[in-house]
C-alpha cells in the first residue's frame, strides 16, 4: 500500500500506540492481509518497535500475515455447527480445494479459514464464501457450491485456479 494511505490511517488514529489494533484492522481492510513492508513503515512512523507490532499481529486471530485469495471460504466451527457435522464439511472442502486451513489455492482464487461461531446457528453447518452464506451444508454439497465461484471467476476471465 502506498505510504500516503498508511499515513491517513495513522492520522485517523492520532498516532496513538493504544490504537495499534484498530490501525492494523484498518490496514488489513484495505490490503486483505498485513504486508511486511507496510508493517515496517508503520513501525517507523508510529514509532513502535517492529517486534511489538508483530506481537499484536500474531496474537490476534483476526490478522493474517499472508495474502488471502479472491474468495475467503470461512467454515463455521461453532458448537451448533459442530454437532450438525461441520467437521465433515471442512474435511471435504480441504480435500476438494487441496489446501489446509490458513492456506490459499495456487491460482489465488480461494483461501480457507475457520471461525469459532458466526451466530447463525439455525443455518448450521454454515460456510461463508466471500459475503454469501451457504447454510445447511453437507459434504455432498461442497463441490457444487465451490464450483459456482470458480465459474463466476472464469467468466470474468480474472484468473484460472
Amino acid at each position, binding site marked *: 500500500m502506498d505510504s500516503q494511505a498508511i499515513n491517513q490511517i495513522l492520522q485517523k488514529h492520532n498516532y496513538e500506540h493504544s490504537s495499534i489494533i484498530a490501525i492494523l484492522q484498518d490496514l488489513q481492510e484495505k490490503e486483505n492481509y498485513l504486508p511486511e513492508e507496510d508493517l515496517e513503515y508503520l513501525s517507523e512512523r508510529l514509532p513502535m518497535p517492529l517486534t511489538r507490532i508483530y506481537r*499484536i499481529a500474531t496474537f490476534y486471530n483476526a490478522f493474517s500475515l499472508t495474502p488471502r485469495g479472491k474468495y475467503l471460504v470461512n467454515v463455521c466451527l461453532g*458448537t451448533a455447527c459442530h454437532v*450438525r457435522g461441520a467437521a465433515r464439511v471442512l474435511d471435504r472442502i480441504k480435500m476438494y480445494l487441496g489446501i489446509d486451513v490458513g492456506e490459499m489455492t495456487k491460482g489465488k482464487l480461494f483461501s480457507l479459514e475457520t471461525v469459532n461461531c458466526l451466530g447463525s446457528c439455525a*443455518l*448450521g453447518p454454515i460456510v461463508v464464501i466471500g459475503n454469501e452464506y451457504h447454510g445447511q451444508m453437507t459434504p*455432498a*454439497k461442497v463441490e457444487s457450491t465451490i464450483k459456482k465461484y470458480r465459474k463466476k471467476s472464469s467468466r470474468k476471465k480474472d484468473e484460472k485456479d
Partner: protein
Amino acid sequence: MRRINNPQELEKIREEILTRRDPNKPCITICSGTGCHAYVCEKVTEAFRAEIRKRGLEESMDIRTTGCHGFCERGPVVVINPEKIFYQRVTPEDAGEIISETLLKNSTIDRLLYTHPQTGEKIVREDDVPFYKGQMRVIFGNNGKIDPTKIEDYIAIGGYSALSKVLTEFSPEEVIDTIKRSALRGRGGGGFPAGVKWESCRNARGDKHYVICNADEGDPGAYMDRSLLEGNPHSVLEGMIIGAYAIGSDEGYIYVRNEYPLAVRNVGIAIDQLRDCGLLGENILGTGLDFEIKVNRGGGAFVCGESTALMASLEGQAGEPRAKHIHTVESGLWDKPTNLNNVETWANVPLIISRGVNWYTSIGTETSKGTKIFSLVGKVNNTGLVEVPMGITIRQIVHDIGGGIPGNGKLKAVQTGGPSGGCIPESLIDIPVDFDKLTEVGSMMGSGGMIVMDDRTCMVDIAKYFLNFLKDESCGKCTTCRDGTRRMYEIVDGITRGEGRAGDIELLEELSWVVSEASLCALGQTAPNPVLSTIRYFKDEYEAHIKDKRCPAGVCKALITYLIDEEKCTACGRCKRVCPSEAITGEKKVPHKIDPEKCIRCGACIAECKFDAIEVV
C-alpha cells in the same frame, strides 16, 4: 433529532413522537438481525418497499426493519402490526401477496403461517406461536418493536425515561442501592452481583473511573449479546450511562467482537444520535453529568472476554490476563478503577429502574433474579434466542419452546456455559435453570449458550471439540493451561482414533485438577469442565472407545464403518455420484456396496441417500 436540554424536554419529545404515530396504522416489521441477513432478508425488505411504491401506499402503511426477533429457525420473519400476524420463511416474491391480501383485505396467507408441529393447526398471531408462548421477553421483546437505527423508536417505547428518573430523583448511592436490592447478577458468566461491583468501583480511590461493556461474546453457539446490541443498542447504552452516573465515571468503552460488523454499525449509529441530542457528552439532560463512550473492535481472541485481558487489549496490548490480587474495580484499564459488565447485564439496568425492584425480584429463583436470554441451538427443532425467567427447567426450554429434537433423534445432553461449561445429561433436565443449580451439576450458566445434543452426538468427540478450541485459544501465559489443554487434547484425540489405553480416564482427571488449580484466569481454571462433565455422566462412552474401540454414536471416523443395507438400497446411484473417493460400486438395479478400504467416512453418501440405506456401525 433536536437537542434535549432537560428531562421535561425529553418527555415533550416523547409526546410529540407518540402523537405523530397512529398505533393502528398498519406496519410491516421485517427482522433484519444477522441470522435473517444470512437468509438475505434485505431482498425481502426491498421487495416490500418496491411494492408499496408501485401501488402508491406510502401514506397508508409503514415499513420497519427491526433487530432479531429470536426465531432464527423460521427466518426471514415478517410481523404485520398492529394485529401481530406472524409470517415465516418469507421470500421477496411473497411481498405483493402479503400487501394485497393481508394489509388491504385483512385475510391471512396460510402458506406463510407457522404450523403447530403436533396439532397441525395454523397459528396467526406471533404471541400464540409455541416458541414465543413459553418465554418472558422483557428485555429481548423490544427488539421486534423498534428500528435499532432510530432513536425515536426507542424513545417512543419509553426509552431514556429510566435515565431521566435516575438523574432527577436518585443520588448515585441510591442507584447502587437499587441495583443491589434487585440482586442483579452479571450475565457474562460469573454471576457476580452487579450492585456490589458498582459500589466497590465507586468507592475505589482514583481521579478517573471507567465503565466498560463487554461485547466480546466468544462462546461458540452463543449470540444473544450480539442480537441485543444489534437490535436494541440504546437499551445497553442507557444502562451504561446510568452506571456511569452511579459509579462516577466520565468515560466508557464498548469492546465488540470482531465478527459482529452489524452490531458495531448499529451501536455506532446509536452513539452518534445520543451525542446529537445531548444524551451523551457534556451536561447530559442539563444535570451536569458528563459521559462519553467509545467503541473498540476486538481482534478475534476468545481470551479477551476475560476482564483483565479485555482491558489489556483496549490499551493496545496483547490480550493476556493478569492475576487479580487487586481487582479491576480498583485498578483496571490504565490502572484506574474500572467497572466491567456484559451487554445483557447493562440492558437489565433501565428495566430495574423503570419497573422497580419489587417487580424485578418477583421473577426468578431465590438466588437468581430476573430473566436470562439463551441461545438455543444444535439438534433442536426451533433454533433461536429465547428469554425465560430464571428457574424454568431445561425440559421446558428444549421441548416446549424448542419444539424437541428433529427427526427420530432422542435428547442425550444439553451443553451450557460454552467451553467453560459442561454437558448436562437427559436425566437431569428437570433441574431449574439458575446460576447455582447449573454449577452444582458440573456445568455453569456462562453467557447463555445452550447446545442441544441427540443420540447421534458422541460425547468424547464433544470433549475433544472443546479441548481443541481451548488449546487454540489459550493465550499461552500459564504453562498448565497452554500445555495442559494440549496434552488433554492429545489424549482425547487418541481415544477417538482408537488409540485409547487403560488409565487414560484417570490421567485426564489428574490433568484436569492441575489445569484448573494452577491456571491464572477463568479460561484455564474452567477448561477441564467439558472433559470432567462428560466423564462424570458418560463414562460408558469413553470406555466403549477405549476398551471396545467402538463409537456408540457413530461419529469418530476411525472407529466406524459405513455399510449399505441391501434391503433398503434402490440402486438409485446418488451415493455413488457424490462419493469423493470412488468407494461405492454397483450397477443399475443392483444394491450398491461400499469398499471400506477406499471409504474416507466423509458422510456425503448418508446426507444424499433418500432411503436411509446407509448405516454406520
